[in-house]
C-alpha cells in the first residue's frame, strides 16, 4: 500500500521484458526441481491423510467427529470460515488494488488469485462433508424437485452461504482465467511440442495480441474487477451471518459482518505473505517479489491486525456495556474458561505479534516476517475456533453445557485440506505462469527498449 520512495524499482535486477518471459516461463518448460517434488510429496501425503479420514467419516458417519448435542459445530465450520477467509486477499489484491492503481500488485496477483480459488475449494469441502450424506449435496440448490414440500429455506444464512460462495468461486475463476489469457498465449508461442502448443492454443482462446485484443481485454478486466469488488465484502459478511443471525451470546453482534471481512483480509494477506516468501525462494522469483512487495504486505497486515484488535476490544467493551449477563459471561469464559489457551493464541498471534511490523527492522527481516505470517494464520484459525466453540459449549442452560475435543478424524480432515491446498498450488506453479508477465512488463523501469516475447 505504499510507494515509499518512488525511486526504488518494484522489479529489481534490471530485467528486460524478454527476461521476464524467460524467468517466468522456464519453470514450466523444464523438469520440476527436487524442491518441487519434495513439496509435492508432503502435500500429497497430507492430502492422502485427508482422503482417508474423510472416507472413513463418510462410511461410518459424523459420529466419528468429536461433536455432540451441544457443540454441533467444531473443527468443520472453523476450517470452513478459515479457508473462506484465506481467499479474500486474492480478490482484494486483484480487484480492489487494480481499481486503486496499486502497481505492486502485479507480481503477486496471479498467485493470490489462484490461492483464492484453491482456498474456496478447501472451504466448500467442509460444509459438504458435514452434511453426512454428501451425495445429496445438490439438495441445497432451489429447483423444482420430486421431494414433495422439501425446499430450501431462503431465510437461513446457511443457504445464503451457498449462493455467496458459489458466486464467489465462479467470479474468481473467471477473473483468474481472463487474467491468464495473454500469458497463456505467450506460453503457446514458446511451446515446442505439438500437444503443448495445441493445449495452450485452445486455452488462450486465439489471442493474437493486436491493439483491438488489448483494448477489449482491458475493458473486460476493469469490468470484472468492479464486479469482483463487492464480493470481497459480501462473502464474509454472509459467512458472519451464520453466527450473527443466531441469538447465541458471543455470536449475535451487529459488528460481525465488517469484523469478519477485515479478519478475512488480515488472514488472507498473511497467507499470501507465507506463500510469496516461499515462492520467491523456491521459484527464484527474488527479483519479482521484492522487499518492496513484502514491505507493502506487512503494512497491510499491521493495519488490518490493528483493526482486528480494535474489534476485539469493542466486543469486550460492549459485552460489559450491554449489561447482558450472558454476553459478559461468554466473554469472560473466553478469557478464563476451558478454552482459554485458544483465546490466548488468538490474541497473541492476531493482535500482539503483528504490532512488531510497525518497525522497519522487523519488516526487513524476512525470517521474522515469515514467522509472523505463520502466527497470523494460526491465530486467525483459532479466532474462528474460539468464536464457534466457546459460545456453543456454554449456552443459556448450564444443564446442556458440554466440552469439545476433536478426534483424529477431524484433525485428519484439516491436514487433508492443507494437503489439497498445497497440491493445487504446486500444480499451479508447475503448469501456469505464476507471475502475470504482461502486467509485470508494464511496471518495469523503462531503461531498456528491447522488445520481449
Amino acid at each position, binding site marked *: 500500500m505504499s510507494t515509499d520512495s518512488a525511486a526504488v524499482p518494484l522489479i529489481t535486477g534490471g530485467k528486460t521484458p524478454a527476461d521476464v518471459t524467460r524467468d517466468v516461463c522456464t519453470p514450466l518448460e523444464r523438469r520440476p526441481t527436487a524442491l518441487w517434488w519434495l513439496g509435492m510429496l508432503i502435500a500429497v501425503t497430507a492430502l492422502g491423510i485427508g482422503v482417508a479420514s474423510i472416507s472413513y467419516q463418510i462410511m461410518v458417519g459424523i459420529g466419528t467427529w468429536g461433536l455432540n448435542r451441544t457443540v454441533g459445530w467444531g473443527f468443520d465450520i472453523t476450517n470452513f470460515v478459515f479457508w473462506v477467509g484465506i481467499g479474500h486477499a486474492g480478490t482484494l489484491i486483484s480487484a480492489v488494488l487494480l481499481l486503486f492503481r496499486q502497481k505492486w500488485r502485479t507480481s503477486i496477483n496471479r498467485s493470490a488469485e489462484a490461492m483464492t480459488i484453491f482456498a474456496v475449494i478447501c472451504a466448500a469441502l467442509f460444509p459438504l462433508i458435514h452434511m453426512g450424506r454428501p451425495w445429496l449435496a445438490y439438495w441445497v440448490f432451489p429447483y423444482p424437485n420430486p421431494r414433495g414440500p422439501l425446499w430450501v429455506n431462503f431465510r437461513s444464512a446457511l443457504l445464503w452461504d451457498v449462493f455467496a460462495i458459489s458466486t464467489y468461486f465462479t467470479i474468481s475463476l473467471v477473473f483468474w482465467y481472463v487474467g491468464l489469457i495473454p500469458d497463456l498465449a505467450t506460453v503457446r508461442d514458446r511451446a515446442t511440442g505439438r500437444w503443448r502448443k495445441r493445449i495452450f492454443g485452445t486455452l488462450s482462446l486465439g489471442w493474437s495480441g493486436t491493439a483491438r485484443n488489448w483494448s477489449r481485454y482491458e475493458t473486460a478486466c476493469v469490468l470484472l474487477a468492479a464486479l469482483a469488488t463487492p464480493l470481497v465484502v459480501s462473502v464474509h459478511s454472509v459467512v458472519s451471518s451464520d453466527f450473527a443471525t443466531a441469538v447465541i451470546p458471543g455470536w449475535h453482534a451487529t*459488528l460481525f*459482518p465488517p469484523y469478519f471481512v477485515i479478519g478475512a483480509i488480515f488472514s488472507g494477506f498473511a497467507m499470501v505473505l507465507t506463500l510469496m516468501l516461499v515462492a520467491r525462494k523456491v521459484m527464484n522469483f527474488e527479483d519479482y517479489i521484492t522487499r518492496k512487495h513484502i514491505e507493502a504486505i506487512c503494512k497491510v497486515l499491521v493495519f488490518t491486525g490493528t483493526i482486528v484488535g480494535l474489534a476485539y476490544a469493542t466486543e469486550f467493551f460492549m459485552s460489559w456495556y*450491554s449489561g447482558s449477563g450472558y454476553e459478559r459471561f461468554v466473554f469472560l469464559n473466553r478469557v478464563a474458561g476451558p478454552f482459554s489457551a485458544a483465546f490466548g493464541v488468538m490474541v497473541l498471534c492476531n493482535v500482539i505479534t503483528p504490532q512488531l511490523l510497525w518497525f522497519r527492522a522487523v519488516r526487513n527481516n524476512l525470517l521474522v516476517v515469515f514467522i509472523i505470517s505463520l502466527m497470523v494464520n494460526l491465530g486467525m484459525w483459532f479466532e474462528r475456533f474460539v468464536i464457534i466453540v466457546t459460545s456453543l459449549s456454554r449456552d443459556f442452560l448450564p444443564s446442556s453445557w458440554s466440552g469439545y475435543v476433536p478426534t483424529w478424524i477431524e484433525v485428519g480432515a484439516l491436514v487433508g485440506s492443507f494437503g489439497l491446498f498445497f497440491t493445487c498450488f504446486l500444480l499451479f506453479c508447475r503448469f501456469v505462469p505464476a507471475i502475470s508477465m504482461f502486467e509485470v512488463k508494464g511496471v518495469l523501469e523503462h531503461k531498456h527498449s528491447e522488445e520481449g516475447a
Partner: protein
Amino acid sequence: MTERALYRTQPRTLRALTVLAGVGAILFLVGLLVDSHRAWAGYLIGFHYVVGLALAGPLFIAVLALSGARWADAAAPVPRLMAQRLPLAFGLGLILCLGIPSLYEWSHSAQVAQDPLLQHKAPWLNTGGFIVRLLLYFLAWYLATRLLLRRSQGGTRGALLRASALFMLVFAVGYSLASVDWIESLDPHWFSTIFALYILAGLGVSGLACAILIFIGLRRAGSLGPGRHVELLDDLGKIAIGLTLFWAYIWYCQYMLIWYTDMPEETPWYVLRLRGTWQSLTPACLVLNWAIPFLALMLRRLRRSEAAMARIAIVMLIGHGLDLYLLISPTAHPSDPLIGPWELGPILLCLSLFTLALLRGLERRPAELSG
C-alpha cells in the same frame, strides 16, 4: 506558496453568515427556554456535524499519507483547512456539556436509582466521566492533528507516516468511544457493536462531500494553482461511491441483524424509528445518503462536472443531516418527528460558525495551508 490569501470572501457573505449565526444563537437560546429537549437535540446534531467535518480533515491527510497517494496533492489545502476547525468543534463540545441533563437519561440520579441497567452502566455513563472523556478526546485529537499538520508541511516522509499512524490510532479509539458517549447513550438501554463504525461511515461521507465543495470553490476562485483538477474531481467522485456504499453496508448490517434476531433489548431502537411519521424518514435517509449519490456518481459525465458534483455533495450533506436527526431526535420527541426553529436554530448556529471559520481560515494563514 505566496503570501496572497488563497481566497477572499466577499464582506457581504461574511456579514450574511454572521447574521445567520446570530439568528441561530438567538433561536437556540429561546429554544432552551421553550423546549430545552428539542433545542439540545438540535445542538447535538449541529455539534456532531461540525466535529465530523473537522476530524475528516486530519483523517484524509493521514489516509492519503499512509497509502502513499499523490493523486490528491493538488487539493492538499482542503483537508488542512477542515482540520484547523478542530478548536471550534472543541468549543462547541464544551457548551454541549451544559446540555447533559436535557439530553441524557442516565444523568438523572432518580432515574438511575430505579433502573438496574443504568446502575450497571453508571461507572461509564455519568456526568463527570462524560465531561472528562470529552476533554480527553479533544485533547488527544488536537495534539495528534497538530503533529500531523506540522509533519505534513515539512520534515521527512517517515515522520509524516508516524504522525499519520498515531493520528489513526488516537482517532479510531477516541471516536469509537465518543460515539457511544454522545449518541449511543441517548438511549442508554440500547447497544450495538457496529454503532461506532456507522457513525464513522457518516463522518466519511459528510467529510468527503464537504471536501468536494471546498475543492470546487477553491478551483473556481483559481486558488489551487495548476493541476489536473478534472481528474482529481473524478477520483473524489469514485471515492465517494465507495464511501456511500460503505455507509449503506454498515446501515444494512445493523438493521438486518437486529431485524432478523428480533431481540427485545435491541429492537426498540428501530421500533421507535419505524413508527408513525418517523417511518418515512428512514427510506429518505437511505435515498439521500446512498441511492442518489451512488447512482449519480456512476456516471463519469457527472463526476467530471463541477456543477453536478457540487449538487451531489449538497445532497450528501443534507442526507448526513437527516441521518444525524434520525439518530438523535427520536429520543427527544419520540411521538412524532418535529423540525422547527428549536432544532434548526442550533444547527444553523453550529454550521454557520463552521463555515465562517473556514472562510476566515482561508484568508488568514495561507502559508499554513500548503501541503
